[in-house]
């Protein structure tokens, strides 16, 4: 916590009739008729009053501060005549030029009071001290916060007073009164809950006077000195008009720790002659940090890059940097060590506004540090972000990261088949954006983004040779993308199932999988093998994303549809949906359940229920006639099924009896009219088991063991990185349903 002095500034303006006096700076404002109309005499120049020049100069001071520090640097205005008028408060809403200009217009120029003596700058100074004792928003927040630092908030501030006094003794009296008032108010504030004593105050007094003056010699500027541990003062003398503005421009740099950069050699087209271009300089102000590297290394001194700028008698340093004509958009990331806001010193001069408009149109300009050796060194960059112009400090010295090892030399560097493009798409899907408000569920947007990433990477193979499903996405969409969603609608479930049926169709037709040929493998695995791998991975994928009942629905569908693999075929003959239900005793509950649900969904989709299903039933019977032809105790050869599958709507048909179809259809119709308990859905058609997870841990372990040994298709799912794999918790009875012949099978049929 630095609690800087610059957090609070009170500007006190003398509004006494004395400031009505002309500043004696003449303004030629009627210069345009001369060229046009020779006969006309231009209007006489007008003169700004002292008041006008004071307001102009202080507004410029504020403009610079608020351009560079949009928040955290607070300035209050107090206008002092017969009493003090506060123009704004510490609250942020009054901290802008528009607000102040309006308030100043309301106050107007000083008026001739009845008695001149009633006016005193002390009214304003007292009000300023009072203002310093008031907490700013952030001070209040820190003071009332429950952190350990709450009690140690330090209240520092500055009073900047522009006035005009006649003698040095007057100045001393003012300082003395100021100190007394400060001590007085600190005592008051110490006994108050809302106010804070001022721990450190800087009192800057600027005495201004009309340009040709005799008063000049009587008072001398007074160097900074300490009047008390709490108060330091300094006194500046300044002629009015642009001299006063220059003084304040100098002070704003000191008060807010700013530095100046002069951009030199900016090519600009002449207004009159568009062909020729001349070079211009623009001076910018920014926090001193933008040049810290120069000051540390002493670079500026040795290379002669910084110059003394003398303006209206005040001297300060400005670093000269050369404009580099910008190259067409390079999207490289520059190594920037700092970025600071800037503001031009002469905001509305033509060169300044040309430069700022150029930058505001989203073009960046590199700045070069001129060096005696003649070598080019890009040291800074000017660029705008969202309507604000910044100066970026570029790193100029040797990098400790030079000559790094290439990523291809490290771990994983020799793998050549990363899914670079797929991950590119993934990144685009996870682009970030600013959120104005919190999300509806109260979660922070950033947390949401992290959670989304977790969900979307539950199964994400990194290399092409470790995946089949992502090498053949077209036939698998929309299943792949839909499954990643946290919730699925009925329609989406149907879409996913369609994909599965489609795959079965492809498999039974013997369509080769649209996979890229992998060089390392020679011919690659046979087609059946490819499908086996595909099914296995697809199952892993679905299991990975299986979170809701709808997701489970799809998983069940897949499991039902899976063609048993050759080895499991011999050991467990009736595993999977392809087994005809007519062969009864080995029918599985799972298959049954899946089918029922499927019917339900299909019916729901056709919408006009009755006609739809009647038609379908007739089709099913056709299919069955085909398939049951004398072969009902064996799994029908795959080719035969395909005939039925050609038909668009019959694509899910296995070999099933008419009775089964009929029962299913009726069940489906019934189930359309009510919603099943989720417990019962999970349990299939048997009695719903309570506390089913109770013994699951142990079972799981056993199961896993079995799986690993036998290499059975029901695999765990891969979570995250390919190198880490965890098994999802399987509910024991699921395994039972899938692997064991189900004694209840007939009951279902009969019921």
């Amino acid at each position, binding site marked *: 916590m630095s609690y800087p002095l610059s957090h609070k500034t009170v500007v006190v303006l003398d509004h006494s009739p004395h400031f009505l006096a002309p500043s004696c700076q003449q303004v030629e404002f009627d210069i345009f008729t001369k060229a046009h109309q020779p006969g006309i005499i231009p209007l006489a120049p007008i003169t700004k009053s002292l008041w006008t020049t004071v307001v102009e100069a202080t507004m410029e001071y504020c403009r610079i501060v608020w351009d560079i520090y949009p928040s955290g640097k607070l300035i209050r205005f107090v206008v002092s005549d017969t009493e003090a008028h506060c123009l704004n408060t510490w609250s942020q809403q009054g901290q802008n030029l528009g607000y102040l200009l309006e308030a100043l217009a309301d106050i107007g120029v000083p008026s001739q009071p009845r008695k001149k003596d009633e006016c005193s700058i002390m009214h304003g100074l007292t009000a300023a001290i009072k203002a310093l004792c008031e907490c700013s928003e952030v001070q209040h927040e820190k003071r009332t916060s429950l952190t350990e630092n709450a009690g140690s908030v330090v209240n520092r501030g500055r009073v900047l007073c522009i006035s005009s006094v006649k003698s040095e003794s007057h100045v001393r009296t003012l300082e003395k009164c100021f100190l007394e008032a400060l001590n007085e108010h600190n005592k008051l504030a110490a006994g108050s809950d809302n106010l804070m004593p001022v721990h450190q105050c800087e009192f800057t007094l600027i005495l201004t006077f009309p340009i040709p003056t005799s008063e000049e010699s009587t008072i001398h500027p007074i160097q900074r000195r300490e009047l008390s541990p709490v108060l330091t003062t300094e006194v500046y003398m300044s002629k009015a008009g642009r001299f006063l503005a220059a003084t304040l421009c100098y002070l704003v740099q000191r008060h807010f720790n700013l530095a100046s950069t002069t951009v030199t050699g900016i090519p600009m087209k002449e207004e009159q002659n568009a062909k020729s271009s001349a070079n211009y300089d623009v001076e910018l102000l920014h926090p001193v940090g933008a040049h810290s590297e120069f000051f540390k290394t002493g670079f500026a001194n040795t290379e002669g890059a910084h110059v003394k700028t003398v303006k209206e008698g005040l001297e300060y340093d400005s670093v000269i940097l050369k404009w580099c004509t910008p190259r067409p958009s390079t999207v490289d990331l520059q190594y920037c060590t700092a970025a600071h806001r800037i503001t031009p010193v002469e905001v509305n001069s033509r060169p300044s506004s040309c430069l700022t408009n150029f930058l505001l149109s989203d073009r960046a300009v590199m700045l070069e540090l001129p060096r005696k050796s003649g070598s080019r060194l890009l040291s800074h960059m000017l660029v705008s972000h969202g309507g604000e112009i910044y100066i970026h400090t570029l790193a100029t010295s040797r990098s400790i990261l030079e*000559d790094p090892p290439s990523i291809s030399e490290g771990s994983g560097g020799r793998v050549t088949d990363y899914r670079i493009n797929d991950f590119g798409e993934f990144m685009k899907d996870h682009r970030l954006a600013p959120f104005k408000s919190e999300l509806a569920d109260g979660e922070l947007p950033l947390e949401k983004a992290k959670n989304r990433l977790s969900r979307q990477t539950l199964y994400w193979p990194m290399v092409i040779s470790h995946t089949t499903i992502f090498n053949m996405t077209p036939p698998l969409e929309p299943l792949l993308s839909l499954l990643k969603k946290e919730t699925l609608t009925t329609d989406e479930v149907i879409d996913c199932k369609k994909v599965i049926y489609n795959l079965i169709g492809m498999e039974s037709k013997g369509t080769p999988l649209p996979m890229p040929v992998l060089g390392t493998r020679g011919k690659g695995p046979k087609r059946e093998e490819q499908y086996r791998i595909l099914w296995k991975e697809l199952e892993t994928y679905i299991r990975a994303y299986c979170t809701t009942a709808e997701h489970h629905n799809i998983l069940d569908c897949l499991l039902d549809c899976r063609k048993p693999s050759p080895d499991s075929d011999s050991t467990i003959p009736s595993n999977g949906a392809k087994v005809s239900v007519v062969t009864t005793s080995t029918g599985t509950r799972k298959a049954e359940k899946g089918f029922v649900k499927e019917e339900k969904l299909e019916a729901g989709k056709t919408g006009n229920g009755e006609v739809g299903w009647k038609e379908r039933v007739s089709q099913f019977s056709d299919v069955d006639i085909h398939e049951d032809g004398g072969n009902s105790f064996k799994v029908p050869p795959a080719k035969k099924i395909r005939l039925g599958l050609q038909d668009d709507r019959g694509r899910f048909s296995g070999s099933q009896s008419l009775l089964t179809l009929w029962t299913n259809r009726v069940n489906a119709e019934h189930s359309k009219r009510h919603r099943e308990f989720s417990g019962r859905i999970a349990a299939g058609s048997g009695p719903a088991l309570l506390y089913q997870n109770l013994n699951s841990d142990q079972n799981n372990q056993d199961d896993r063991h079995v799986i690993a040994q036998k290499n059975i298709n029901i695999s765990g799912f891969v979570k995250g990185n390919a190198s880490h794999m965890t098994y999802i918790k399987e509910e024991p009875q699921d395994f039972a349903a899938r692997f064991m012949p189900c004694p209840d099978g007939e009951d279902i049929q009969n019921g």
Partner: protein
Amino acid sequence: MPTVLLLDVSLSMCRPVLQPDIAEPYQLRNLAVHGLNSLLDFINQHCKLEFCSLIIFSSSCEILSPFTRDLESVKKALLNIDFYDKTCIETALGSTKNAVLEEWGGSVPCQIILVTDGSTGIGPNSLKQRLQDIGTKTKETEQRFPLPFPFPSKLHVVCLSNPKDSNLQVSIPLYQKLIDMNGGNGQVFVPEGNLNLKTVQQMFLKLAETYYRPFHGTLHCGNLNCNISLSPPPEACEKINDFDSRKVEMSTDILICGFLDINQASNPPALSRHLVLPIPPQSLKEEGKAVMMKQDIDASDDDAVVGNDEGKQPSFCVLLHGSLKVEGMVALCHLGEDWYGMLCSWADSKKKSNLMLSTFEPGLEVVPWLGKFTQIGPASLLPELSKSVTENSFPIKLAEKRSYAQNCVVWIRQMALQADIQKILRHARKLPDKTQNFYKELNKLRRGALAFGFYELLDGMAIILERECTLLPGSAHPDAALQLTHAASALRSQVYRDYNSSIKPLCTKFSSGD
């Protein structure tokens, strides 16, 4: 961070070390070389990319080895050291400062290891005397003294001296004072037990283990992850703001939050930069899992045996790097409490590119054009309607414009005022086409004059407008004269001395009514 080895080569380093059981005693300098060698070996093994430099000092200084990653060459340089007169630590620190500034500039953190025998010199240039001089606060001495270094640094003092040596007891507070003057980062090292090869080596290794600890962590992108090391290792850092301060430390879990285009990130300033080097999963357990997984997915695969060759194991870092490079994007990362950074593909001037982590300053709102980090969320969750609106993407647009973007009134220079008047007259001559612009500029001038209390300008402007009216050519639109006269009288009217009541165009039968 680069290291400067600052070795005392004063004559006193040639003192023998008396050891009871060894006939031919070592000299202090042998111990120093032995210790430094073990330190260099440690760095070579654990922090391959570190730079080291060897500077020897007595009453003068010499750079024996400039900053290099070739630590063997530094070791070689240690073999051929001559010994000179007396110890002068101030000179040594001064040379170090210049060497570092010249090589790395003012923002790269460095470690300076001062190896000495525990005597701090004699005479007016002895450390004791110099520190006393600074205590008396003459400005000159203070400016000349090289501490604190202008770059972030850690200063260690390694004493080759018996811990009970009375000379050392006097010196240690002085060394500590040096470290404190430099910001307090660093440590005085003294051998534990009597001075011999073993204790010296232990002392150097203790330093190495404390201050050259490599950083190992995990990079996460959801469930994808990768073991990484960061080079150079990240430092804990404290950022002091106006009203709070933040101390942050890099978490071993670096979380990717999402992705941005490079131009959306717009060159945010980096506090530090680190190479992200993937390291292969070490533990057997993980390897075992990987094997199982592969068999599972691809059981028929002939080469199911996963080789131990680390280059062949896929690494998420490599995938991420490739995609970031191809797509021109960066990944926003959460590095620890209230500390964020970004990952990008970075190439040195040569072709070799690598994954790099740039850390931002600690805090939630340190890159103004990205806004508050916790308010950044997935773009896909934005309502469909507002997606196209530029407000909902980076950079964040300002609610209020800065002075240079809003045509503000500054008349300090006479030219600026003249330009504003000229603008009004230019529009005046194109009345009625430019009626709206004319009144807009006129009101801007009027408000400026009112705020500044510059009423003379209003009268002057009124006169100019009236004169413009008389100068209108015959071909002028009749509305022009009417508007000019109206504007002139309005400027004089008390009604329009109110800041907020704008002068509006006169409704004439020529004007279109709006």
